[in-house]
């Protein structure tokens, strides 16, 4: 399996760059995945989305529906797409360290 390197530590990812083990996630890991997604700097707004998704996932083992994401961050849907140009699944969930969702994504 491919890997990414953060602070000298090798972290396993799948062929599309999603973390193989979500426990490997850390702030620096998120920053690196974000860079690969074309996001140079993670702002407070990015972190609000990332933290919500991550905590939701840790609790429920599911990615949150985008409605909950909007409701809990107070962001408009279109703004979330601006923050994460690859969209909530391949963008935000990936940076938050979630496994790749099933379905047409």
């Amino acid at each position, binding site marked *: *399996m491919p890997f990414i390197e953060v602070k000298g530590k090798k972290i396993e990812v*799948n*062929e*599309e760059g*999603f973390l*193989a*083990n*979500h*426990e490997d996630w850390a702030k620096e890991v998120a920053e690196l995945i974000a860079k690969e997604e*074309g996001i140079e700097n993670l702002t407070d707004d990015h972190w609000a989305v990332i933290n919500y998704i991550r905590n939701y996932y840790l609790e429920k*083992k*599911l*990615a949150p*529906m*985008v*409605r*909950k994401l909007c*409701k809990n961050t107070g962001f408009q*849907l279109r703004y979330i797409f601006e923050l994460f*140009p*690859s*969209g*909530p*699944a*391949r963008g935000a969930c990936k940076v938050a360290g979630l*496994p*790749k*969702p*099933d*379905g*047409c*994504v």
Partner: protein
Amino acid sequence: MSEKALKKDLLEEKIKQVKPEDLVKALQVFRDKLSQEYAAYLNSCVHCGLCADSCHYFLADKDVQSLPAYKLNLAQGIFKKYFSFVGKNIPGWTGAKEFNQAMVKEWVDSLFGRCTMCGRCSLNCSLGINIHLLIRKARSALASIGVVPPGLQSTVDTALEKGNNMGIPRKDWIETVEWLEEELQDEVGDKQARLPMDKKGARIFYAINPREPMFFPLSILAVGKILYAAGESWTLSSDNYDVTNYGYFAGNDEAAATMSRRLVQSMEKLGCKTLVLAECGHGFSSARWEAPEWLNKKHDFEVKSILEIVADYIRQGRIKLDPSRNSEPVTLHDPCNQVRLGGIVEEQRFTLKHAVSHFIEMKPNREKNFCCGGGGGQLAMTRFSQKRLQVGQIKADQIRKTGAKIVAAPCHNCIDQLMELNKHYKLGVEAMTICEIAAVALIIN
């Protein structure tokens, strides 16, 4: 098994654990799936090579393993070895091949890994061999012994266990629709505007792709807006609403039948006249063309794509569109399962010509169009994702040549691949569904 282990791709280990009795079972399933017609196909290829240039895999990588005839030959060799008189007795004469673990691996790599079941080779075959369907039958043999690439298998499993392919809880689906309904009311300025849920006796039951409520809800809103403007009698369903059917790609007919039956159940529960399918390529060919086969029963209701419905509204003057609201150049991608294999060809063009001011066809188009590279379950099978992006170059080049800024695609799966191609090949385009584009142009009185 720990959750950690589940996330890993265990396919190689699975193949190593394939026992002789599994091989016997897979062979039997393969044979059982072959009608006389299909058995004849397996004796028909004359290696003319016309299929080579029809396949986006071969065009992109020029690798002999990507040739449709080569892929077909993998299935043919097994058929001849085990089910033909000459092949059984003098295997060397017929190109008969042994079915063993190495062959299972080769089937997986070629028939899952190098094919999107797009059917372009079948269309170009000089003998009319249904190559993509034979490949599906070989996939069925693999599926019968549990050898299906993990992302594809888990999408089937999630749909079977949770009722939809993204595992959306019922409450979340209902709340999302309520949220979208408020958005709709704001957009059309009418507090009575509805996204009806479980409305019995409505004319239309509209089945959606779970990806929409989960991550891309604006496409539901767009359709809701169009149906509102047309004054349609329609409904969503609180359960059994998933238009997708990954049993189709996995070659799992039983799973495919279960998923098809769910839409039939919703039609019965709601008493609707027409099942209308969201913009989803394989969902369309599954529900409209394959389901009666899987269920062994003809539908006693009408099945239509939302594309047909919207084009009808325009023809009948039930909705009015202002094309000047979509002034950027738009091109159209033809999803294989909706167009070449589905037969919905002109409706989306008709709608776009009314909805946008600058429409450019990519070439080739209609039934001759190239697959985006994400079909056949490729988007779900992470292990082949680099290949998927590589062969998507054919589509990326087609798009670039049009100079369009927006790629319309009546399939959510294609849209995801197109977004990936956009990023990978730096196309600078946006991918939208037909209804999203039409909704922008929609005039609300």
